[in-house]
């Protein structure tokens, strides 16, 4: 700029370094703690120096909390949730934006209102639905026809149960909607003049055009899926379907046991790594997705 401002510049650097210590410092503590021995991690004062036991601690944590299965499950869950959200919200937004139908307002508000129903406030009945998926259908049939139907399908302890209730997304739908609305009308007109129907238009024009949006949405939704805590906790009782967030409990030193926080920290480091890598490597897309979905 056009000024010399040595004091303000020093202050700016000071602020940035302080922010670094504040926001990245905890990662440093986790990493050095995870690389120390049991005695070192409990030493007072805490030593920020990383030691050489990171891999041993990680493998101890890996077996203690059976992180192998948990990481795999979390990965499957996050991927399924991501794919489901990216696909279904694109379809819904297409229906809302590109068709002249009296139902579009209905679809829009149906999706919009879900913003006001976070999982935490409807957790018990949602669990009840997942535990007995056809309960609504059964009640409806018996109310309309008077027949009692006995079909049972519960989603407990399955990937379907982990993912299906999380796939509906208002933010994703609105992201696509915003993007579709910015496209010029001529695009659809030209496609129609060339004889393309809506499905052709969607596959050949809309999908390639929304590639950046998809990537942005994919990154934020993967992190979202990986970081789910409450829902898997309720859905899963079978250790085979445990996710990483559930193994946090197993990693914690018990109240009267040895406080081997080095292993705990190493384990939580493993669990933090996948979303951290996504955000670090694909940061451009992640940030774009964040800013775009909140408009």
């Amino acid at each position: 700029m056009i000024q010399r401002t040595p004091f303000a510049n020093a202050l700016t650097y000071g602020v940035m370094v302080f922010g670094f210590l504040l926001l990245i410092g905890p990662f440093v503590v986790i990493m050095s703690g995870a690389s120390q021995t049991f005695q070192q991690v409990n030493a007072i004062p805490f030593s920020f120096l990383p030691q050489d036991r990171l891999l041993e601690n990680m493998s101890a944590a890996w077996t203690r909390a059976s992180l192998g299965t948990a990481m795999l499950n979390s990965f499957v869950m996050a991927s399924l949730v991501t794919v489901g959200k990216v696909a279904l919200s694109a379809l819904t937004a297409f229906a809302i934006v590109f068709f002249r139908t009296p139902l579009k307002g209905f679809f829009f508000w149906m999706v919009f209102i879900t913003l006001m129903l976070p999982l935490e406030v409807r957790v018990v009945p949602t669990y009840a639905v997942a535990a007995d998926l056809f309960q609504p259908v059964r009640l409806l049939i018996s109310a309309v026809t008077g027949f009692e139907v006995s079909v049972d399908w519960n989603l407990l302890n399955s990937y379907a149960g982990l993912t299906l209730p999380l796939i509906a997304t208002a933010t994703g739908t609105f992201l696509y909607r915003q993007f579709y609305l910015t496209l010029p009308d001529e695009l659809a007109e030209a496609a129609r003049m060339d004889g393309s129907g809506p499905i052709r238009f969607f596959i050949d024009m809309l999908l390639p055009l929304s590639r950046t949006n998809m990537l942005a949405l994919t990154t934020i939704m993967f992190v979202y899926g990986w970081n789910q805590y409450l829902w898997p906790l309720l859905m899963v009782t079978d250790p085979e379907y445990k996710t990483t967030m559930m193994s946090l409990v197993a990693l914690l030193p018990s109240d009267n046991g040895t406080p081997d926080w080095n292993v705990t920290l190493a384990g939580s480091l493993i669990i933090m790594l996948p979303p951290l890598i996504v955000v670090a490597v694909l940061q451009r897309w992640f940030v774009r997705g964040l800013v775009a979905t909140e408009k």
Partner: protein
Amino acid sequence: MDKRAAFRSWWLPSLFALPQIILILLFFYWPAVAVLRWAFTLEPPFGGAAEFVGLANFQEVFADPLYWNSVGVSLAFALCGTLATIFIGLVLALAVDRQLPGSAPFRFLYILPYAIAGPAAGMAFRFILSPERGLMASVNAAFPDFWNPAKYGSHALILVIVVFAWKWAGYTFIFLLAGLQSVPRSLIEAAAMDGCGPIRRAVDIQIPMLAPTLFFLLVIMMTEGFVGADTYGIVARTTDGGPNHGTDVMVYRIVEEAFRGLNYSGASAQSLVLIGLIMVFTFIQFRFIERQVHYK
């Protein structure tokens, strides 16, 4: 807004929207109706159909001092967490926006905590800010009993707010930085020509121009603090709502009451109160932010 060139069909869009609509009906609306039903009914203790009890569930909830405690805790958590995240994000965004040499990496680094799940962050902070080890142990050695979140509710509340602020500061940072970059460069340069230093420019030009972004973040972060998925996860894995209900935020209480206390009616009544609160926040967000009241 309507597209001029829309396709004409009623069954095709319905088909496209159907998968998501089914999921929404099954996992959002049906449960929401159940919440509504439970909030006004009570199951008899020895079985039988639920009875309609009017507002009795709400009366019971509102008569419980622990409920009001959780309201207070939630309010403190959301308000302090929001103000802390916005303050940190604002100061950092102002610093990075000056684009001094060497500031590029910081912009990349500040967002990293946002990738971490609330519960995982909470568990790490249990160590980092533990009274017996980690960073606070030396302070406690010098001043005994200075910091103990396992013993004092207020310390525990500070602990969960710290975790929340740590995770979300990068998020507000991104939005505020984006907001700062849309402040016209010419305005800043004109102020600099008139002899305004960087701090004066920040206070008198940049922060007022950020008013819409700040207001938007205030609403978003308050919502997140009250009902965010992270709020539950952080509290559950850091303090378990304790000690002595010191961090018993509203969402935590609802889930606990439902799954540990099996008091569906009470939990549903509390859920309805919270849904009402979210509706207010959502209304504010869309009513006032869509309008974009710009500072002129």
